[in-house]
């Protein structure tokens, strides 16, 4: 090795004599390696669903509300206290039940990166833009609709006049805004914490508007997003890197880390290697095996949180034999839960005992509706369903193609193999069907024709059991949004109709608990595990905090002295 090293060093010295190595990162800088960089900074634009785009938005923009923080977890990661809202751009607020109106007293003296001062005009502009549904993916409108803000109905898509903002969001004075709901809805405050309603700097947005693009979608898709967040955009090269610099005027105090370079390194193994050399200080989206390999590495901390990432089995109620409750339960009993936790996640996951993230308010785990691995019970259920030893299931071979996202082969490969092996042993003719992410998304969200699949990418960004229920389990006719398994239960629809407008929190929680028990009884989804959201970083870095969108806020971080 010594000779090789000498030769290599000599070669390098000849070719690049001026280079001693990569530039060192100074104490106030952070090099963050990610699987990608933001593809867009427009939450109503085409890149809004991409997690790294959301990371860009949440570090440059500011919400009206946020959550208070709770004590750090066992890994030292600070987690939110979902029961307590904090005003961010809102200073104080009140709610009038009689008129369903929220009065928001806005924070004064908040400065944006462009030098603009935050006031009511920025809030009005943000809701006007959301209601214009002018972007490719109108998330702002969607969240306003979910929160029952008056006038944000589907009518806006067909009727141009309905797109104008009326008095439902009203400017009272420079620092007071009122927002009226169409019905009582507990999702109002949770929704206003989500990136899809963060506040724009109206002045700069309007300065970058054009006749063809009055809402500055091109600008936010490609150039930047003016707001009042903790960081300002220094430079942005799509598919390469984005550089943030601290906003010195940030109202919560200037960020401790003055400059953050978020660099795209597509190979997770390279992110590991670069972190280990100390040239980068923070990495994300490694495989469970890679996180595990870093746990003992010197100078590196691996930390995580059981937040809202999970894995479940998707069985389509419209596709036989998954319309048979006995078959569904047999699959549940044949599932190798412990093997998945150990082989798939290296122990960094726990059994998921419900269908809502267990960290969310309102989560329940019905004790008498849990399905442990029991192959004898699975065989008995199959026999009861008319398929003794799996005989007769060969007629449903297409339905038993276990579909998963091909791009996630490294993570999901060992898991689907374990499931296939366990289910075949029980008599199910399971085959594997990896397909591209976009095709998976199309079949799951639009066609809704995936018979049997494994899914690790559904995390309700609205932190509320009711939001999750409405998103995934309510039938489309009753206002369901993303019912990918075509689950229809009039009882659940009816209970949700009550819970949605129930103003009393305890009564609402009771209704949501009943819904969750029914969902577990019907095995609407087959919950498998909740896996930890993890990061690996320099042990000098402190303040790591988890947020429900799983995007890191650089403002939370600082270096230990």
């Amino acid at each position: 090795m010594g000779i090789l090293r000498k030769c290599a060093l000599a070669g390098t010295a000849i070719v690049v004599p001026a280079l001693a190595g990569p530039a060192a990162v100074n104490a106030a800088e952070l090099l963050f390696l990610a699987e990608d960089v933001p593809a867009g900074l427009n939450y109503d634009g085409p890149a809004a669903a991409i997690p790294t785009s959301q990371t860009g938005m949440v570090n440059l923009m500011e919400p009206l509300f946020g959550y208070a923080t709770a004590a750090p977890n066992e890994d030292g990661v600070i987690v939110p206290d979902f029961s307590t809202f904090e005003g961010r751009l809102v200073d104080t607020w009140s709610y009038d039940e009689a008129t369903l109106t929220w009065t928001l007293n806005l924070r004064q003296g908040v400065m944006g990166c462009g030098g603009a001062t935050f006031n009511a005009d920025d809030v009005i502009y943000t809701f006007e833009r959301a209601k214009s549904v002018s972007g490719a993916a109108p998330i702002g409108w969607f969240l306003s609709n979910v929160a029952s803000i008056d006038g944000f109905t589907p009518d806006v898509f067909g009727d141009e006049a309905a797109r104008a903002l009326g008095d439902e969001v009203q400017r009272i004075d420079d620092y007071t805004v009122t927002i009226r709901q169409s019905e009582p809805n507990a999702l109002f405050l949770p929704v206003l914490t989500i990136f899809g309603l963060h506040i724009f700097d109206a002045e700069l947005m309007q300065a970058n508007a054009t006749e063809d693009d009055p809402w500055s979608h091109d600008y936010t898709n490609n150039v930047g997003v003016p707001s009042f967040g903790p960081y300002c955009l220094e430079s942005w090269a799509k598919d390469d890197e984005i550089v943030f610099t601290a906003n010195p005027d940030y109202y919560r105090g200037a960020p401790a880390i003055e400059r953050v370079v978020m660099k795209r390194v597509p190979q997770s193994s390279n992110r590991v290697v670069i972190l280990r050399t100390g040239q980068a200080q923070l990495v994300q989206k490694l495989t469970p095996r890679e996180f595990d390999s870093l746990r003992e590495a010197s100078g590196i901390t691996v930390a995580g949180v059981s937040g809202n990432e999970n894995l479940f089995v998707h069985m389509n109620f419209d596709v036989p034999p998954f319309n048979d409750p006995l078959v569904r339960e047999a699959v549940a009993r044949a599932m190798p839960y412990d093997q998945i936790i150990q082989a798939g996640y290296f122990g960094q996951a726990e059994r998921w005992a419900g269908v809502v993230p267990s960290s969310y308010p309102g989560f329940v785990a019905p004790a008498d509706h849990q399905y442990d691995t029991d192959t004898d019970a699975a065989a008995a259920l199959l026999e009861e369903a008319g398929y003794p030893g799996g005989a007769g299931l060969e007629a449903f071979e297409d339905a038993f193609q276990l579909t998963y996202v091909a791009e996630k082969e490294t993570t999901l490969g060992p898991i689907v193999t374990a499931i296939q092996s366990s289910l075949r042993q029980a008599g199910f003719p399971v085959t594997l069907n990896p397909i591209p992410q976009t095709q998976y998304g199309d079949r799951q969200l639009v066609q809704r024709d995936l018979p049997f699949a494994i899914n690790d990418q559904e995390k309700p960004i609205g932190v509320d059991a009711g939001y999750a229920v409405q998103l995934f389990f309510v039938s489309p006719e009753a206002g369901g949004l993303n019912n990918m398994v075509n689950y229809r239960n009039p009882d659940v629809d009816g209970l949700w109709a009550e819970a949605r407008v129930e103003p009393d929190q305890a009564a609402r929680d009771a209704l949501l608990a009943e819904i969750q028990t029914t969902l577990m009884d019907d095995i609407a989804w087959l919950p498998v595990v909740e896996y930890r959201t993890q990061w690996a970083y320099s042990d000098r870095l402190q303040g790591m905090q988890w947020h429900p969108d799983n995007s890191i806020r650089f403002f939370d971080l600082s270096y230990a002295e």
Partner: protein
Amino acid sequence: MLLRYVTKRLLIGLVQLVVLTVAVFFLIRLLPADPISRFVGLNPSEEAYAQAERSLGLDRPVHVQLLHYLGLAPSQGTGLLQGDLGDSWVSGSPIAQEIGTFLPVTLELITISFFVAFLIAVPVGMLSATRPGGAADRGVFVYSLFAGSQPEFWWGLLFVYLFFFVLGVAPAPLGLLSPMTSEPAVITGFITIDSLLAGRLDVFLEALHHLMLPVATLVFILSGPIIKMVRQNMVRALQSDFVLYARCAGLPARRIAFYALRAAMAPSMTLIGILYGFMLGGAVLVESVFSLGGLGQYAIRSILAFDYPAIQGVVLVITAISLSVYLLLDILHAMIDPRVAY
């Protein structure tokens, strides 16, 4: 004569481009997924679907979409004829601008790699052919077994581990420059050229340093077939009548070798041309390992996201470059081989 030949080839190339453009336009619409799902992930309502469909222009009949894409429907906006490749459905950015960013990275990588591979492969192939069974020949045999037995990304990862992580003589695989380096202004898009134009020798040297491992990886892979091709053609040429005649005429061995090499170069150049066209998109794994945002990575991202305009743009650009390379090769071929007539 040459001008007529080049004009004829350019016209044929243009027809090929048009046919391919139309074929790709229809073929990608046969892909088994609807790109709209990406837009409605958080909001899969019918209204949102219709909105996304409208925003992508997919609500119009296919022939109208084609006319718009080709630039033959002025009422729908600009298209190819006006030099507009459309906007990406992933990022919203103009495709021409994105390709203009990614293409130079790939061209820089593969051009340098081919240049180095050529410099190594031709003398090694010659040596191997002129002394069959000699050390060089045996070395080539072992190397071709070795290099060809593993894919390029495996070699790339191995090189990163060895030269960056273990030996510390190569930079981290973080693209063409360290993230903390301030880049020179973009003039041509080629970092080595732009840095020199800006008088930034430090950046030029850093870019070379960062290119060291990806180029070494590609050279390691590309040299094998080029050496083999040069060697085989040299062996064949050395056995030909004109070499026998040259030997009988008492010409010096070096001159004979030069004649044989000239005869061997024509098919070797053809191989290099084909490989060059292939590597425009085929360097994707090396680009990925070394975090180089090149055209291959852009193509893969576009395909996985069913980003129709970007896929069409990439195919068009790769085809145009490949056709230009083939044309250039034909001209070189004629210069090397006097038997070729236009």
